[in-house]
């Protein structure tokens, strides 16, 4: 069962989140460079969209259940219109 978020993996979690969001929640599709690492507003907005899509609590923050969902095997087709 999903353990509580391991603070030690902060950077790894952030990388996972940004890679996931650029793959599945970027209408521009993969051709566009991954989300600008400093563009926290874009990340927060996409994170909220992902959390809403997956029926998670919409916090815009990187939390344990969001990470757990992002780590699940899935289909490669984006969740937002491309």
């Amino acid at each position, binding site marked *: 069962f999903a353990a509580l978020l391991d603070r030690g993996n902060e950077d790894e979690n952030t990388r996972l989140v940004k890679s996931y969001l650029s793959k599945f929640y970027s209408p521009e599709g993969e051709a566009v460079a991954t989300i600008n690492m400093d563009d926290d507003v874009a990340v927060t907005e996409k994170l909220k969209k992902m959390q809403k899509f997956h029926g998670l609590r919409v916090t815009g923050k990187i939390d344990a259940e969001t990470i757990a969902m992002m780590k699940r*095997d899935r289909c490669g087709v984006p969740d937002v*219109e491309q």
Partner: protein
Amino acid sequence: FTLNPGEPKWDRKNITYRIVGYTPDMHEFYVEKAIEAAFKVWSKAAPLEFERVKDKVADIELSFQRGDHYDNSPFDGPGGTLAHAFQPGSAIGGDVHFDEDETWTAGGLQGHNLFIVAAHEIGHALGLSHSTDQGALMYPTYTYSDPRTFQLNQDDIDGIQSLYGKPDIPVRGPKTPEACAPSTTFDAVTTLRGEMLFFKGRYLWRKHFQSGVQLEFIATFWPDLPSGIQAAYENYETDNFVVFKGNKYWALNGYAIESGYPKSIYQLGFPKTVKRIDAVFSDSESGKTYFFVNDKYWRYDEIRQSMETGYPRPIAQDFKGIGKKIDAAIQQNGYIYFFRGKRVTQFDPRRKSVVPPIRKSNSWLNC
């Protein structure tokens, strides 16, 4: 369900498919059977006919690819992305690619079930996009489901019929339970290492004190457990939890079903007249487990590992006011909560009385 922008779909009902490449993980025969069954999922739900061709380009071309295979969507090695497909259209349109770096199987444990993934990807190839319904086949994440008992969710049926209309033979599918629907009831409830699990059909709601309530398939965690669990409790003596269906029960430790299970409930000391357990809870203080069947209950001593004498007793005698045919029961903070239909009754075992008010069962799902 959702469709793609512009709602692209095939402009005919007869659609061809070709298996362009195979995986070394499975015998070709089983790959063909899995893909044939995956197409059948959709031809049963909408007026579509699929014909397999071998020697010419087909509308839907299925292949196994690895890494970057030059369609602008490289695969990522084992795990993560399992497959993808393209919406209806010419050339690559409608094509389905499976990630060869996954382990493909006709079963459910070692690897990913090809039938389930193919059925999902063919949904895309027919024009469906991802669904937000967690019980739908078109939900983005992978969940194993036994191909022999697989049923297309009503959300998926609605989606494909919005594109291609209804088939001659009407078809209906299971609806995903909604936590906060007024009609929500539970089959079984248990604590588990600080979380709570509420069983319902093929699903369970998982409630974690920090992160709310999440709907899951039972098969996501325990592919070998049946759906329709009828009673469940956490055994504090053995740090595992026990689930009951019919006259069988399973002991689970985390994701693993303990060896030697399922066992017969008659091994616990029930008479053969008992055909199923309605509800069960265990008292962590005393190590006693209470089993409810119709209007009676039994008490089992987890420490001595035996059913206590003097049972069964009438529920009404010791749990006055909770009624009979309990759906589920759980002990929390010294109280016992009895779920019957849409209502849950709090019971104080010290005073041997009901603690008003009676609440809605789904109030336990933060509704």
